[in-house]
C-alpha cells in the first residue's frame, strides 16, 4: 500500500509537468543562459590561465545545480497544495507521513530529471564531450542529486507558511549556495570564512559529486574535483537522512499545530 501510494503521488507530479509543457521550456532558460553565456565568456576570458575547459567545468556544475535547485523548488508545490487544500486529502489518508514526503521527493526528482536530460541534450549540441558510460554515470548521479535536493527542499519548506514567503526566502538560500558550491568558479582555495560557508552548503557536495564522476580518469580530475566521489556520497547520504527525518517531523508538526 505504501509503495503504491509513493508511486501514485510521484506520478501525479509527473502528470502535472506533462500537462504543462510551458513549465518545462521556461525551466530550461536559466541553465542555457548559465552554460552558454557564463561558461562561454569565462572560457574566452580566463580559459588560457587554467589547465581545463571552463565550458565543461560550468556545464557539469550547472547540471548538478539545476537538478538540486529544481527538486528543492518543486517541493514548494507542497505549500501550494496546502494552500489550495489538496494536501489535506492526502494528509487524512491512512498512509505514513514519510510516504507522503518520499512520494513528493521522487515526483519532483522525476520532473527535474526530465529537465536534466534536456540539459544533457543541450550539452551535446554545444559540443561537450560525452561517451555512453559518462552519460549513464551522469544519469545515476542526477538521480542522487535530485533526491538530495528534494530532501533539502522538505527541510527548508517545512517551516514556511505560504507560497509568498517561500518565494521570498528561496533566493537567499539558493543564490549564496550557487556561488559557494563552485558552480561557476573553482572553490579549492577560498578564504577561511567562505570555505566554512561553502562546506555548510549542501549543494557543494552535489556539484563536486557530479564533477568527480564526469572527470573520473581525465587529466583535469585533480585540478577540478575537491574530494573523492565516495566521500561526497557518504556526506550526501547523511544529509539526506537528516533532512528527510527532520523535515518531515517539522512539516507534520506544523501541519497539526
Amino acid at each position, binding site marked *: *500500500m505504501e*509503495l*503504491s*501510494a509513493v*508511486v*501514485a*503521488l510521484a*506520478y*501525479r507530479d509527473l*502528470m*502535472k509537468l506533462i*500537462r*504543462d509543457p510551458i513549465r518545462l521550456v521556461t525551466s530550461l532558460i536559466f541553465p542555457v543562459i548559465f552554460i552558454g553565456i557564463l561558461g562561454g565568456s569565462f572560457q574566452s576570458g580566463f580559459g588560457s590561465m587554467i589547465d581545463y575547459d571552463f565550458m565543461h567545468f560550468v556545464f557539469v556544475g550547472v547540471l548538478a545545480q539545476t537538478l538540486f535547485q529544481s527538486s528543492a523548488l518543486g517541493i514548494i508545490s507542497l505549500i501550494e497544495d496546502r494552500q*489550495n*487544500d*489538496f494536501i*489535506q*486529502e*492526502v*494528509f*487524512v*489518508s*491512512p*498512509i*505514513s507521513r514519510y510516504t507522503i514526503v518520499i512520494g513528493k521527493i521522487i515526483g519532483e526528482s522525476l520532473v527535474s530529471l526530465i529537465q536534466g536530460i534536456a540539459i544533457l541534450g543541450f550539452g551535446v549540441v554545444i559540443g561537450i564531450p560525452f561517451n555512453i558510460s559518462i552519460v549513464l554515470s551522469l544519469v545515476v548521479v542526477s538521480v542522487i542529486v535530485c533526491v538530495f535536493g528534494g530532501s533539502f527542499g522538505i527541510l527548508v519548506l517545512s517551516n514556511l507558511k505560504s507560497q509568498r514567503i517561500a518565494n521570498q526566502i528561496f533566493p537567499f538560500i539558493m543564490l549564496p549556495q550557487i556561488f559557494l558550491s563552485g558552480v561557476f568558479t573553482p572553490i579549492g582555495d577560498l578564504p577561511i570564512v567562505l570555505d566554512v560557508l561553502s562546506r555548510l552548503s549542501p549543494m557543494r557536495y552535489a556539484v563536486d559529486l557530479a564533477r568527480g564522476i564526469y572527470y573520473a580518469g581525465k587529466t583535469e580530475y585533480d585540478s577540478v574535483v575537491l574530494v573523492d566521489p565516495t566521500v561526497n556520497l557518504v556526506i550526501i547520504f547523511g544529509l539526506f537522512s537528516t533532512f528527510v527525518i527532520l523535515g518531515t517531523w517539522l512539516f507534520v508538526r506544523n*501541519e*497539526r*499545530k
Partner: protein
Amino acid sequence: MKPVIEVKDLTKRYPQSKSNAVDCISFDVHQGEFFALLGPNGAGKTTTISVLTTTLIATSGTVRVCGYDVDTDPSGVRRNSGIIFQNRSLDENLTAEENIRLHAILYGMYGFRPTFGTMPTDYKHRVEELASVLGIEAEIHNPINTFSGGMKRKLEIIRGLIHSPKVLFLDEPTTGLDPESRRNLWEYLSDAQQRNGVTVFLTTHYLEEVNNADKICIIDRGKIVSLGSPDEVKSDLAGAYLVVDCNERSSLIEELDSLGVKYEVNRRIKIQVTPSEVHKILRNIETPLSNVETQDATLEDAYLKIIGEDSWS
C-alpha cells in the same frame, strides 16, 4: 452499543492565543446517526472537526473515532473516515477519474496503475456507476477545472465514500454554492447516507441543513450551548413565545419593561416566555390587548437566541 465518535473534555488552544477555540466539550455520536455541529463563524466548529479528522492536535481531552484514539492511532481513524473539507480538496490538474483513482490507491483499495484502462475491472465498473449517479459519464475523464462548484462537491462526496468509511465528516460543505446546488447536494447526500448506512458528522451555520439531523450540537465561543434532538434543542433554548398586540403600544412596552420580560417589537410584540409563565404575564398586563397568541419556538429562534442575544431588549 459503543458510540462511533466519543469526545470527552476536548479543549484546543492555538499557539499565541489567549483563549480556547474549543473549551472542554463532550458528546457522543452513534452508528448511522446524522449529527450536526451548528454555530456561528468562529464558534469552534472547524477546530472540532479538524481534531476529529486528525489534522489538528488537541490541547487536552480524548477523542475516539470508530474506537481509535485520534492521538495514538490516527491511521485507524483515517481508514474509517471520509472527509469533505470546507475548502475544495480536489487536484485541479487531474481528471475526475484520476482524483478518484488517487484516493482509492491512497486508501489501499488498489495498487498503483498509470491509466484507467489498466485498473481492475471492479474499479472501472464502480467508477462508471458513480459517474452515472452524478450524470457525468461523458465528463468523468475531463479535467475537473471544467466542472461547476456543485459538481465538484458531489465528486468529493463520491470520493469520500469510495473506501466505504464508517463516518463521513462534512465541514460546511455547501459554502459558496447557489441554492439549487445546495438542495441537489443535500438530496444526493441523504440518498448516499441511506444507501451506505454511514454516520454523518456535519458542521454548518445554515439552519435548514440541520432540520433532518438526528442530533444537533450548538456550539458558541468554543462551548456547547445545547445538545440533543432538534425538538430538545428548541425547547431547551427558546421555549415558547407569547405574541400580543394592542392599540397603545407605547403603554404596553412601558409595562413590559417594568415587568422585566424579554420582548421583540416587529409587526406584533413577541414576548419570550416559558409555558408556565404565560398566565402570569397576561395577568400582569393592564393595557387592553387586541390580539393574544402563543407560539412554539422554531430552531431558528433557538439559534438566533444564541448568536443574537442583543436582538432582545
